[in-house]
């Protein structure tokens, strides 16, 4: 997030696109509702009529995979009606003419046609966003999990730059990160192109820096992303995989493919707190301690580094992940031992500029938001304060492109996936909480009432969904949350996992699979 969570309450306009905030980031959802109580305006764009849609000034129920067309349509109106921040654009951005040229074609009529919404609503949304003094955009996987994900993110950035809604308190671009420490895992170099602090592995000066810091010879070859790893494993090029605390056998697209990849290895190590679907396939399983049993830090979606504190001893013979890694690294010739995670943080700050001022001592109060370049720096509440980080904000004109797989005669429905309030990711944790299972016991597929009528499917009936990659059985939930040609299914449930159906086609830049759009058919089972 460029802004802080506390700033959400002070937005004048909130634009939520591709995020079911009240279910997936519930506490941020409460900040949004409080902003509305203060009089903020709300624009919601989502293929589903989510809770926030009920409070929205404009709700755009767009077809899955049409975010860019909508954003371009809004920018068309904003430029046409001269509602953009001319001074900001002139002073702080580049490429305005290109953007103007591209969005020219996206008249409200054209955009409305692609998105399947009313053109008046696009105009209204554009006016609300552009006229607000401080507007925040909030998005999640509904933007990124498309083959056009990177472009959609650029498009969002275009919109905010166009209206000068960046680098200010309570105005900015705010991706909401799904998992507790996905921000931190990226910050710490859990990426094939990046050392900690987003320092690129292919830059000679960076390589040299880390070779000196770690006293090791390092590779400058960019590594593989998960989809690539799975492909190469299936082809037999990757022989050894070590998985720490992830469950790709439920979370990744095309599970049949993941299974083939993981069973084709010479050796698979899985380290987790439960025997997950993925751990079942391992050669060695290492028992890890849960978050309640260890010291450490997580970095939340507003870049706040916060302490995790040990409440109980690790259960059984399990060990905290850092200890397991340290003991293994020791056997592989690592030259250091740590007696406490704070000592690992002390090493992190010497190689990670944005964490340079962070120590356990300083985290005692309310944590610190990076960038925090030195020990006297208070941390950073919102980004791009003086100017956009790279100097001038680059407006990147992008066009709408269709999703990789569109519905056709054999697979006539658009299938989209997501999370629900009562479960988390692959349910390894929430699936073991009785009350949560009581509130959300089984997987289901949301199907529009009139579609259900046409297919003679009643609420609660068992149905089969089939895509080009696989099929699953689940229960029909007849509802008006989705449009007639859209089916939605939460991906949490291993026993009828939505990811048997999803498409592995990825965004070329970010390598994110298109989990939000696949073509499926639905079959009545007659039982």
């Amino acid at each position, binding site marked *: 997030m460029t802004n802080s969570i506390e700033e959400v309450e002070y937005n004048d306009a909130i634009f939520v696109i591709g995020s079911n905030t009240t279910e997936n980031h519930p506490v941020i959802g409460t900040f949004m509702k409080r902003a509305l109580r203060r009089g903020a305006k709300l624009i919601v764009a989502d293929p589903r009529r989510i809770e926030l849609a009920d409070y929205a000034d404009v709700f755009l129920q767009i077809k899955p995979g049409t975010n860019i067309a909508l954003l371009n349509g809004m920018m068309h109106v904003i430029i046409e009606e001269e509602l953009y921040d001319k001074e900001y654009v002139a002073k702080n951005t580049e490429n305005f003419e290109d953007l103007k040229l591209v969005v020219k074609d996206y008249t409200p009529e054209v955009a409305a046609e692609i998105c399947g919404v009313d053109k008046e609503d696009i105009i209204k949304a554009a006016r609300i966003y552009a006229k607000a003094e401080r507007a925040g955009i909030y998005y999640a996987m509904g933007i990124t999990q498309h083959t056009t994900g990177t472009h959609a993110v650029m498009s969002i950035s275009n919109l905010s730059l166009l209206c000068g809604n960046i680098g200010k308190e309570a105005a900015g671009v705010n991706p909401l990160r799904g998992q507790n*420490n*996905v921000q931190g895992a990226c910050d710490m170099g859990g990426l*094939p192109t990046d050392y900690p602090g987003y320092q690129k592995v292919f830059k000679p000066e960076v390589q040299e820096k*880390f070779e000196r810091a770690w006293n090791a010879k390092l590779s400058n070859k960019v590594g593989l992303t998960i989809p690539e790893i799975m492909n190469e494993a299936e082809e037999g090029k990757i*022989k050894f995989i070590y998985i720490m605390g992830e469950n790709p056998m439920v979370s990744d697209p095309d599970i049949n493919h993941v299974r083939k990849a993981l069973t084709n290895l010479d050796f698979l190590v899985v380290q987790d707190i439960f025997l997950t679907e993925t751990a079942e396939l391992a050669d060695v*399983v290492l028992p890890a301690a849960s978050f309640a049993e260890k010291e*450490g830090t997580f970095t939340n979606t507003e870049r706040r580094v916060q302490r995790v504190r040990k409440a109980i001893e690790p259960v059984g013979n399990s060990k905290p992940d850092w200890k397991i890694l340290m003991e293994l690294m020791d056997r592989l010739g690592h030259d250091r031992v740590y007696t406490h995670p704070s000592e690992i943080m002390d090493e992190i700050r010497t190689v990670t500029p944005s964490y340079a001022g962070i120590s356990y001592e300083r985290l005692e109060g309310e944590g610190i938001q990076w960038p925090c370049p030195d020990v006297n720096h208070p941390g950073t509440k919102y980004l791009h304060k003086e100017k956009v980080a790279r100097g001038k904000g680059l407006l990147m004109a992008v066009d709408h492109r269709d999703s990789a797989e569109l519905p056709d005669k054999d697979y006539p429905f658009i299938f989209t996936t997501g999370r629900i309030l009562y479960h988390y990711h692959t349910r390894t944790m929430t699936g073991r*909480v009785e009350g949560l299972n009581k509130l959300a016991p089984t997987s289901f597929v949301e199907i529009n009432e009139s579609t259900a009528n046409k297919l003679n499917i009643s609420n609660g009936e068992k149905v089969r969904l089939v895509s080009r990659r696989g099929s699953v059985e689940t229960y029909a939930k007849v509802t008006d949350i989705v449009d007639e040609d859209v089916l939605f299914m939460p991906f949490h449930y291993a026993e009828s996992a939505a990811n048997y159906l999803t498409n592995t086609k990825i965004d070329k830049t970010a390598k994110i699979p298109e989990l939000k759009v696949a073509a499926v058919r639905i079959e009545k089972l007659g039982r």
Partner: protein
Amino acid sequence: MANIIINGKGYQVEDGITILEACNRLGIDIPTLCHDERLEPYAACRLCVVEIKGKGKLETSCSTKVRDGMEIETHSERVIRARKEILDLLFSNHPNDCLTCEKSGECKLQDYCYEYGIVEGTYIGEKKNYPLDESNPFYTFDPNKCILCGKCVRVCSELQGTNAIGLKDRGFDTKVSTPFDMGLATSKCVSCGNCVAVCPVGALMPKKRERYRAWEVRRVKTTCSYCGVGCQMYLLVKGDKVVGVEPAKSRPNNGLLCVKGRFGYNFINHPDRLKTPLIKRNGKFEEATWEEAYDLIVSKINEIKGKYGPDAFAGLTSARCTNEENYLFQKMFRALIGTNNVDHCARL
């Protein structure tokens, strides 16, 4: 700034704050059952009354702003008499079961009755007799213990923004309830438990699997392990078990949680937890020691690296693990195995 006198002593305080806020900042203790600094002032319980020179009646300090020259008495005889009267009334219409009440030890009514010497209610008459609402899987509502401070209703509407509950009827029959009295399970309630967290008495209580008394548990502040909001919370620990969770009033969540953070903790001590390393032999997992597991992994790493080189390795690090663990994991792959094939499910 305003110059005021409290209990005969002069102070300078910020303009525009309430008497209660001023006293809180100055460390002068004023009892209240219905106040929460995150909510609009409500002035319902009237326990926070103070005497202001020149005013005939007592004023509620939570809703009265300081003014320059104000002279305030927070514990005068008249004030104390009024507070005793209020507590007596409340306790007269309250089940007298502190011995077995789960809230005992952290109940505000109990604390204030102790402080003001209320032993029993002197108003004898009809007591409330409503059925319990146990329909929510995570918490119960006992309307008989409810003192109608309205905090739960206001938190649900003002902070949580769900509006699942309201105050129904008037006078003696007033009651916190869901629309049409249909029970919490069929209401809009999203089980965040934020109402439970502010109930000053034992009316709204979490359902517990392990029984414990307030003074038996340790509170450990930590970060929620579910979504990226990173709410701050306390784990309640009894012996070697996590037996509950309470929200922390600090950034970013300021005392709020959602159902997962608040009630989704039973996985921690779940019997399915992995407790020992496992090695697969002939397609079956067998328990192993850490030494055996490490030795096997290291020998496989050396063997495969010798045969195929470092780029035959790949590691999936974890958005669930700590920064320190992610740092070590990628360091292991880069510095010790020699490949940049490290990724995690940021994209999923």
